[in-house]
């Protein structure tokens, strides 16, 4: 083992902190620290706020049931204010100062990539509980959100059967949108279809007039929107205002995740097709019970969305692993998490795939109707086959990269 300056600083500063904080670090029965970095305000708060509430609720429920290993869970939550710079800052704070035992957090793919390596270096298990573009291959990182193979493929399949083969793609201009657009193209071509054009938009673009005209002149059979955030919501509004929502069908890989269907009026949102892990309309007892508990704790259940549920399920999965391992030791926990462990959540079974550290999930294809996500079709236990095609952590445990699809 080479002894670098960085390693020296890391080990000595750790020792110094150990001396300074004897009770927190070693006290018997001290709380287990669950770190969380989420956008609780700003442009992305529609995603983040419910996730923060879900984190609180998960921790409270675990504590009410006696905690883990006889210890309580303490949530250390930082609001990253939709500012990517704050992610790096708070991730280091969680790793160095707070010395948390696990981290559940990050919303955009940009934020995940900003913090993932920090926790890997610090040997702190990191759970990313949000739908994303797939491909992350890192033994320290566990993903409980959907990937394109799970949620994009079925919706491309259905939209092509229903509407036709020519698609126009609009996507957010950062790694999520860029890579998701490639996956959309991949699945469209696999089924003999074609992507007429792909346009990318930075997160603050709010004027889609020229784009809507361009779509009309391209005459696609359907439009696929992988748009993200409050400003991009204008697209759906302007699309409806030009009357196009009655002419060309639209499907989206992100719509509903930020409760977009509540921000739009029924006339603007109706008919948009989406696919994902969760709908509030799910009639299973576990979902009804979850919503009832949420209502009791926070009042408004309308804001519960897929990634809030994913966050809740991610924490529950981690808690189950801690119980089974009987320890917080990273290696022991990873062994349990790589044993095919699963939990039943409000959105169905979440089963961790040992080779990819991604979860198999129940997927629903849904249609927006009267500000609700009505379930049209369900595909149970879809595996993360996109990531599995290139990532095998059982074989290459030291892998640390994100694979992309090649077309």
């Amino acid at each position, binding site marked *: 083992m080479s002894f670098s300056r960085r390693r020296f600083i890391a080990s000595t500063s750790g020792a110094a902190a150990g001396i300074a904080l004897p009770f927190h670090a070693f006290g018997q029965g001290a709380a287990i620290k669950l770190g969380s970095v989420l956008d609780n305000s700003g442009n992305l708060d529609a995603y983040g706020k419910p996730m923060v509430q879900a984190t609180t609720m998960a921790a409270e429920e675990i504590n009410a049931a006696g905690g883990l290993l006889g210890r309580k869970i303490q949530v250390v939550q930082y609001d990253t204010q939709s500012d990517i710079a704050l992610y790096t800052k708070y991730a280091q704070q969680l790793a160095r100062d707070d010395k948390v035992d696990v981290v559940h957090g990050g919303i955009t793919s940009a934020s995940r990539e900003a913090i993932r390596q920090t926790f890997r270096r610090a040997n702190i298990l990191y759970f990313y509980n949000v739908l994303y573009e797939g491909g992350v291959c890192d033994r320290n990182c566990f993903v409980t959100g959907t990937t394109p193979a799970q949620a994009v493929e079925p919706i491309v399949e259905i939209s092509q059967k229903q509407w036709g083969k020519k698609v126009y793609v609009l996507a957010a201009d950062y790694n999520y949108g860029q890579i998701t657009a490639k996956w959309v193209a991949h699945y469209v071509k696999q089924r003999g279809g074609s992507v007429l054009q792909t346009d990318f938009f930075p997160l603050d673009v709010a*004027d889609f007039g*020229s784009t809507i005209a361009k779509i009309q*002149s391209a005459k696609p059979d359907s439009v696929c929107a992988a748009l993200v955030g409050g400003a991009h919501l204008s697209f759906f509004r*302007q699309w409806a205002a*030009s009357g196009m929502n009655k002419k060309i069908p639209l499907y989206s890989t992100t719509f509903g995740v930020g409760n977009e269907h509540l921000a739009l009026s029924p006339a603007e949102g109706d008919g948009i097709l989406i696919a994902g892990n969760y709908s509030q309309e799910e009639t299973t007892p576990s979902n009804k019970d979850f919503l009832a508990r949420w209502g009791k704790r926070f009042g408004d259940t309308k804001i519960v969305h897929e990634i809030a549920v994913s966050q809740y399920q991610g924490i529950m999965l981690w808690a189950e692993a801690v119980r089974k391992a009987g320890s917080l030791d990273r290696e022991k926990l990873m062994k349990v998490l790589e044993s095919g462990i699963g939990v039943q959540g409000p959105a169905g079974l979440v089963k961790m795939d040992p080779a990819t550290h991604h979860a198999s999930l129940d997927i629903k294809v849904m249609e927006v109707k009267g500000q609700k996500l009505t379930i049209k079709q369900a595909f149970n236990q879809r595996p993360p086959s996109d990531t599995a095609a290139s990532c095998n952590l059982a074989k290459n445990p030291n892998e640390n990269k994100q694979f992309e699809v090649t077309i």
Partner: protein
Amino acid sequence: MDYAGVVFLEILYMIAFLALISAGLAVVFGMMRVINLAHGEFVMIGGYTTIFCNRAGIDIWFAMLVLAPLVVGILGLLVERIVIRHLYGRMIDTMLATWGLSLLMVGLVTLIFGNTAVSVQAPIQSYQVGAYQMGGYNLFIIAISTLLMLVLWLVLRYTRFGLIARGAMQNADVASSLGYNPQRIYMWTFTAGAALSGLAGGVMAPLTGLLPSSGSLYIAKAFITVITGGAAVISGTLASSIIFGAVNQVVSFGSTPVIGEIAMLALAIILLRLMPQGITGRFFRNST
């Protein structure tokens, strides 16, 4: 052919949009030389007024055309009385003060309405241009912006108040010696500028939706339009709106909206290099 029509309408819309969001700033900057960094927040509050009055059951047209300018006008009056009037002639101080004000307003709106996107449906149906569907609301924006420029020009050029206001801006001492109180004129000019910003916010609200931070969407575009336009309020704003609007949309159609914005900003830099006093510093010198 239809496509050309669509492109033309989108260009008109972008010009109208730029003129609309810049008018309030142009009045305040062009006539009083006050750089109002809280301009974007005035626009944003106009939008919020419209959306929340509409939610309270008030007719949307009344909310955007009357209430939004009224509320923001009153806000502008308060701001002028409390802050701006102490800072005339001190440009840097005004910038700092209005910047602080903009942060304060973003914070207050976040506190009151929450940091979540709000929106209201556009109250006009779409229409057909050949094979294309267009948002009918864009036409309304073109109309309102044209009307606004016309009224502004008539007021400044042909009314007594316009004459006095222009006179006071040119030389406050002379206006004062003729019996007009410059303080009073500044006050009403700032209020009028704020009301125009509120109107712009109200009219734009159905198209974009709003966040407390939405002011930043407008401020940059409004600023480059006004600065490039130069000191003449109407001809300057119109000239730069036309140039920027056309360039932005033509490039957007040719490539992507992102490149369109970049082209517009690049052009602004070039224009300001060539004409540091703005377009009206070189051409149309004696216009309003």
